[in-house]
């Protein structure tokens, strides 16, 4: 493998924008749109994990759904291994889905209650016809073993499993077609903490064993720290900070990231004493009536006039670290 192919990202998302029509335009009045995801770009290299973090309503899940073509993107480009994913139509799209699979947030609603576990895991194989019929059962057996479920549990129905076991079934289903990319939409947020760790370890183990690439959506920075190579912080549909794990966790630049990180509890006494909780007052702005300037300005403790009138761009501070804040200058010093 040459350096060039190694450095080429597996997933390349450019200027992805998703909007929802809130009010239909008609004879009277203009159509009104909510921009859930507003012009975001990111890349993931093969075998790595990118996390998108942000609070509820920041657009992270919508972005993931749009990448997987489960929500229609309004603008932008998604390249998966040189396939222009957004331009695929009908049958091509259906076949291409074998390359990109999804793990859902809620293990209780993501499994069809009327279908046995084995059939749930088998479904992608049956839908996409990637392997001959005879081999499918064998693959299901292997997947059950890989995610740590008993072979005799294959005959059970979803309601007979616990939350963690259900999520394992969901993971097995996502692995069935041997996808290049797996999108994990908050895969552990519906589980209790002990089970969370099990599932995260399982995901990491599977990543190492099968060389998987993850797009990991989460609101929990503790989980992200455990999982990811690169992190994108989203706020109100925009990426405000983007960088590799080390530089983002050690040197958060955007006031929002800083505040988020200061809220992560730590067991280390010294570290706890060092970090001051940064509180961000108020609520996020109305997504239908976004401010002209920086979207975080109304809650930012250090906002200035310029922040309220001019939108910041995502600027590179170092090669591996970008931030969208007027107050971070070229030297890369955080405003707070």
């Amino acid at each position, binding site marked *: 493998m040459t350096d060039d192919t190694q450095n080429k990202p597996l997933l390349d998302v450019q200027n992805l924008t998703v909007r929802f029509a809130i009010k239909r335009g008609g004879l009277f009045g203009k159509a009104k749109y909510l921009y859930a995801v507003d012009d975001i770009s990111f890349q993931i290299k093969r075998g790595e994990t990118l996390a998108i973090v942000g609070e509820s309503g920041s657009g992270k899940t919508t972005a993931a*759904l749009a990448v*997987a073509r*489960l929500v229609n993107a309004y603008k932008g480009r998604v390249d998966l291994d040189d396939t222009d994913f957004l331009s695929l139509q009908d049958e091509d799209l*259906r*076949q291409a*889905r*074998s390359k990109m*699979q*999804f793990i*859902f*947030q*809620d293990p209780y*609603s*993501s*499994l*069809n*209650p*009327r279908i*046995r576990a084995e059939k749930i895991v088998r*479904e*992608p194989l049956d*839908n*996409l016809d990637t392997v001959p019929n005879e081999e499918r059962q064998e693959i299901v057996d292997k997947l059950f*073993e890989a995610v*740590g*479920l*008993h*072979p*005799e*549990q294959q*005959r*059970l*129905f979803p*309601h*007979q499993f616990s939350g963690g*076991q259900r999520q394992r079934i*969901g993971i097995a*289903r996502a692995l*069935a*077609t041997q996808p290049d990319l797996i999108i994990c939409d908050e895969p552990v947020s519906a589980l209790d903490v002990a089970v969370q760790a*099990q599932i995260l370890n*399982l995901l990491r183990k599977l990543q190492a064993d099968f060389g998987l690439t993850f797009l990991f959506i989460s609101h929990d920075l503790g989980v992200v720290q455990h999982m990811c190579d690169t992190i994108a912080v989203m706020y109100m549909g925009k990426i405000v900070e983007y960088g590799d794990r080390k530089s983002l966790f050690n040197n958060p630049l955007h006031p929002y990231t800083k505040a988020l990180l200061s809220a992560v509890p730590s067991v280390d006494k010294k570290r706890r004493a060092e970090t001051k909780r940064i509180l961000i007052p108020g609520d996020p702005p109305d997504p239908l009536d976004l401010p002209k300037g920086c979207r975080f300005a109304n809650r930012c403790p250090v906002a200035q006039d310029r922040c309220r009138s001019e939108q910041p761009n995502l600027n590179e501070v170092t090669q591996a670290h970008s931030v969208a804040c007027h107050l971070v200058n070229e030297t890369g010093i955080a405003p707070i």
Partner: protein
Amino acid sequence: MSAPPIIPTEETPKARHPMAEAWEMFRGNHAAMVALVVLTLIIITAIIGPYIYPTDPFDMVWAPFSPPGVDGFLLGTDYLGRDLMAALIHGARVSIVIGVAAAFMSVFIGVTVGALAGFYRGWVEELLMRITEFFQVLPTLLFAMVIVALFGASLPMITFAIGVVSWTAVARITRSEFLRIRELEYVTASRASGAKNGKLMFQIILPNALPPIIVQAALMVGSAILFEAGLSFLGLTDPNVVSWGQVIGSNRQYILDASYTVTIPGIAIFVTVLAISLVGDGLNDALNPKLRQR
């Protein structure tokens, strides 16, 4: 197996189909179970009764207005001296067949319309729901009468008429279930794993939408029987086929002199429809998980 599973070893529960649990729930409902037994008896009567009791219900076998139990006729004779017992047994077939066939038809139309509307949304939904509303605002009995009067009072036409006027409720229920279920994650998961629209609609969403549709279908059988009785009471029925409503209709002038000629088929209709309703109610409790906690 090599890698030891991470899950603590516990006894694997038996795989039980959700329907098996529903049946258990249904069995615990005494009224519904009694109704089911009654209904089964009525259906058995309808199937084998005419062979065991072959008297032709149109034959004048005895003097008119012979009261029940007298002269060897268990339920007496009507104004033409026809055996009421024979009418009841032979009529059960027609009533139940029309009831079931009309219910099937309305479920078929209703599920198709509701599924397409709920799944595709947009203009498909607009169009189909406006059509549904059109059928909803028609006075059903009148509309059925018009169909039967125009196209002739044969059994298939009566079934058709009843089916056509009563599918709207099924369409609305199906649509609302589709609207709810299509947003659930397991449907998105199926789509993400490459399921085609047809599969999504009929193999993923429909089975999960079935419980309220089954209940509605069961109740629809009862209302179709009533509908048929109403139509034949008004004389809109195949004169060569006996049905319960027709017996009531033809004897209605003598209601004061020989009330049993009207009451007996009336009770038959009442018992059948009540049994169907109770079974439908039992199904509702058994299939609706929200009520299970009650």
